[in-house]
């Protein structure tokens, strides 16, 4: 069992590492969004998170309180579409 687990982890680790490497850095995203825009300012609040994904952004939004900002609602919208996982809303099941 232990060997099996080690094998699974060994095979999985390069994939996990690759995923982490592919997630864009916060700085890159802020640069792309341009820091002075509403989106750029929204992304800059994710201090301490070097890599941002849609999931991590939505998770942070859900932990928040009070009124939602426009970037927050747009990311929530993006997340709703992402739930369709390759099958567009309105497709036959």
């Amino acid at each position, binding site marked *: 069992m232990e060997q099996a687990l080690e094998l699974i982890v060994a095979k999985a680790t390069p994939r996990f590492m690759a995923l982490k490497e592919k997630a864009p850095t916060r700085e890159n995203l802020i640069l792309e969004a341009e820091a002075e825009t509403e989106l750029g300012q929204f992304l800059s609040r994710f201090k301490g998170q070097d890599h941002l994904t849609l999931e991590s952004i939505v998770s942070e939004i859900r932990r928040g*309180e009070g009124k939602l900002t426009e970037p927050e*609602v747009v990311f929530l919208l*993006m997340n*709703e579409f992402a739930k369709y996982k390759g099958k*567009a809303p*309105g497709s036959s099941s």
Partner: protein
Amino acid sequence: MAGKKDRVLIINLTRMGDLLQMTPFLIAFRREFPEVEITLMVLKQFEDVCSGFPAVDSLEAFDAEAFLSRLGNPEHSLVGNYRELERMLADLRQKEFDRVINLSFSNHSALVTHLLNATEVVGITIDEEGNRLLKHPWIQHFYNMVDNREINPFNYVDFIKKIGESDGRAAMSFTVSQPAQEFAKAFCKSHDISETDWVIGIQAGASTEHKRWPVASFGALTEELIKRGARILLFGSGGESELGGRIREVIALPQDHVERQLTDAIGKTSVQQLAALLSRCDLLITNDTGTMHMATAVGTQVVEISLGPVYFPETGPYGESHIVLQTGMSCAPCGFYVQCKNPVCQESIRVDQVLRIVEMLRTGHLATAHQLRNGPEWDHIEVYRSAFDEDGMLEFEPVIRRQLQPVDLLKLLYREMWKIVLDERDGDIDALRVCQKVQRFFSVNGDAINFGEESNAFGALAELASQGSEISRRLLVWAEQIPQNIPAIKTAGRLLSDIDEQIELKGLTHRTCHPLTFMFRQGKENLEGKDVGLLSQGILRLYQTLFREATLMRRGLEEILALLRENA
């Protein structure tokens, strides 16, 4: 509402069938507001469907497939995807819609609705903190329908009309384009289908296996219809193309005869061409599908086979004199999320039963108001005919005369009650009208009519609502005092919480009351803001509404039962 040249955006990000079911609302809405500019937002893959819609001035097509493709492509960054959505929203905001009507029941449509910042919103949206808001009493009742299907009496199309605040009778509608009409003419000519042939369409597929009548049954039915001289057109999407071959395999007739009488159009038509061919059919026999709705929209009579989770009062063919066959099994319809391991309902509807219905339609023996005697040939099946009621809303009349069951009466009562309450009308349930409907469609055994438990439950609910109203009135007084009487407000809050628990319990222990307690809970979830005074006003209205609903049901039930006993 909207006046001259106001701009209205109607959002409907759903499938073909749901879009077609919106057409009666569009017709009624246009009739009521002839000067309004109507824009319809749909998914791009259904742009073709909407090209035949009445009353729409312009279309906004959102390419969800392309956007999803971006999301799954690592070459597109989060920021790039964000900007894409931002562009879509900016394009829509530029048009400065005065009113947004969201007819989709989805989170993404609610978020889009919110982001458009329109002056008036109808339908599902979110509040500033992201909580779902159901901005219309009929939308709140739509969610009630999902939870209380067996007592829900309304068709989805009528919900849409009510949510859009358009009344009056209007049928489904789809305009077949000239090129599509030419296509249908040429198609029929090439397959030797003459204008005098008896043409029957068959839609054997469905979006889920659970909703499908067995292909073997469709095959056996097709064989019998061919023997009776019918020309058969098979319909379906490209993904269902193998069904044509499977139907042919079942048919035990000479192959050249079958080839002459049966034409396979599965996956071979565009939406417009499908509509054109359906309009040539004298009848469509179908599962619950978008094809069914297209057939009703082009004026073709439908026989629907309603199976699995399909509940035909909700989604059945919208128009006059369509027929629905549903299994008589007690587990029907199954819940939305049920994964049935033994869908015996699919076998319970027999080929000979469907054939008999088709033959009676052909000879006119199922004309309006005609009923069939309850006999062994109709074992395990129920048959219904669609019709519009006095308010222009669709109902399904039983074709086979059966003994009145409690759920039948409750459905009729709830229908009348919701129309009064949700439309904010005065008055009581018309007990005489309900009684006449019962006597028209059901056999009534006077001794068996006993709804004492239901009547008491409605009475108990009314009493709880009355107590809640009383405390809410006091709460309102305390909330409006300066300074506010905080200890009294807290005590009132606790008392109301106790009452609400009892209301909830009543709904859970008496299924017949559950629609009322569900709506009450929905109402509380839709109270907006944090001001104690406004919230108190809101909660008082909810208790008063619950009181009215429960009282209408109790009184209506008692009056109808008295009338039925008199006439039994």
